[in-house]
């Protein structure tokens, strides 16, 4: 490659020469984000149900989520490597922990906003607890839950990049790290741009999901 390609602020040529790498990095980024938010969501549902069933646990649970969130990511990745190795699991443990602070409170407020009369009606129809939870409570709480998911997902898209620091994949973060290390702006700008595009993509998916919820449930829940 000609040296002149490396001089400007952004070289399209550099990107075209690496199309396959760019594609792989984007796919990796989507995978890491989806796993983190998906598993984080399931854990948050469990924690929120506990917090609502036994009221006194609500404060300690949200507090614990806040503590996890304040552990600096670099330190957490570094501390986990001796235990879980240079694996996807190491990156995901950290990423999943960081989703809880946004997901747990929004699921709790969402579930609590479901009117007691609706729950009574479901009981009256003979619904079991599990069925009532998944077919009545979760859909009615959807607006708040999706709002929490949007924030958690977009934040995770940004955080995934940090795992590139400690050689744990890191999706498009690898470009940012490369650009930073060599003071070369093209991969840096590419990494940031892809990170923003990925966030926009995920956000649009959630907006679509929100539209898919039947209008009546949307109105009732507000």
């Amino acid at each position, binding site marked *: 490659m000609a040296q002149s390609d490396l001089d400007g602020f952004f070289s399209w040529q550099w990107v075209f020469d690496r199309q396959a790498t760019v594609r792989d990095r984007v796919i990796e980024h989507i995978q890491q984000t989806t796993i983190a938010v998906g598993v984080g969501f399931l854990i948050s549902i469990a924690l929120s149900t506990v917090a609502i069933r036994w009221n006194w646990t609500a404060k300690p649970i949200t507090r614990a989520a*806040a*503590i996890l*969130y*304040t*552990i*600096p*990511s*670099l*330190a*957490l990745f*570094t*501390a986990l490597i001796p235990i879980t190795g240079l694996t996807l699991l190491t990156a995901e443990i950290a990423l999943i922990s960081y989703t809880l602070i946004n997901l747990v409170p929004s699921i709790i407020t969402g579930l609590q906003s479901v009117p007691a009369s609706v729950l009574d009606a479901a009981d009256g129809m003979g619904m079991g607890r599990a069925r009532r939870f998944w077919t009545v409570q979760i859909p009615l709480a959807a607006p708040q839950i999706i709002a929490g998911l*949007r*924030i958690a997902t*977009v*934040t995770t*898209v*940004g*955080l995934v*990049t*940090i795992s590139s*620091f400690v050689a744990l994949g890191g999706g498009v*973060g690898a470009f*940012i790290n490369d*650009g*930073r290390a060599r*003071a070369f*702006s093209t991969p*840096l*700008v590419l*990494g*940031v741009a892809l*990170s*923003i595009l*990925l*966030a*926009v993509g995920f*956000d649009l998916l959630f907006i679509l999901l929100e539209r898919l919820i039947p209008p009546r449930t949307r109105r009732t829940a507000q």
Partner: protein
Amino acid sequence: MRSIWEFLTTSANWGGRRGIWARTSAHLWLSLVSVAIASTVAVPLGIWVAGWKRGAGAVAAIMNIGRAIPSFAILALVLPISIRWGFGLGFWPTVVAMVALALPPIFLSTLTGVRTIDPSVRQAADGMGMSRWETIRQVELPLATPQIITGIRISTLAVIATATLGALVAFSGLGSFIEEGRASFDQPRYLGGAALVVMFALLAESLLLAVQRLLTPWTRP
């Protein structure tokens, strides 16, 4: 756990220019400056946008996407500019990245706070002949205070935890312990640094919760 304890109880780790005291106060000062700048921008902006009939949702979505911009990328992008303009390494590049990090939560919570005010309250203010400015100061701002402070609290937590990345651009804060510990495989040092950050963040959160309760006595149970 014992290693963290040893790190924290060795008095040599506390004093000096690169000690815990100096770095904690640098970390505190940087977080204060960043959150103050972010609040000064985000709160008025949130109140202003909340008054729009259309387009507020779009601005909120754009702000939300801002969270996806990695802080360490902002650091890397700002560093050369900061050096060229004479702001140097360390403090100012980190402040820029932290302000960018703190803006979205404060803006979005201010927006929600103002938007969820009961319309009849605003009508009452109009009916009393309040000007726009009086309505903002005496009605909207107080009613949105709980949400605004919640936003500031979330941002403060994020800033205190993330300002550790400042060590990458030679900011000597609590992140320096993490960076040094990582570089030299000194586990007590980076875990100790992380523990200090967590304690510091929780302390700041408790403080802001107390402020919130003081400022909004009507929400106390």
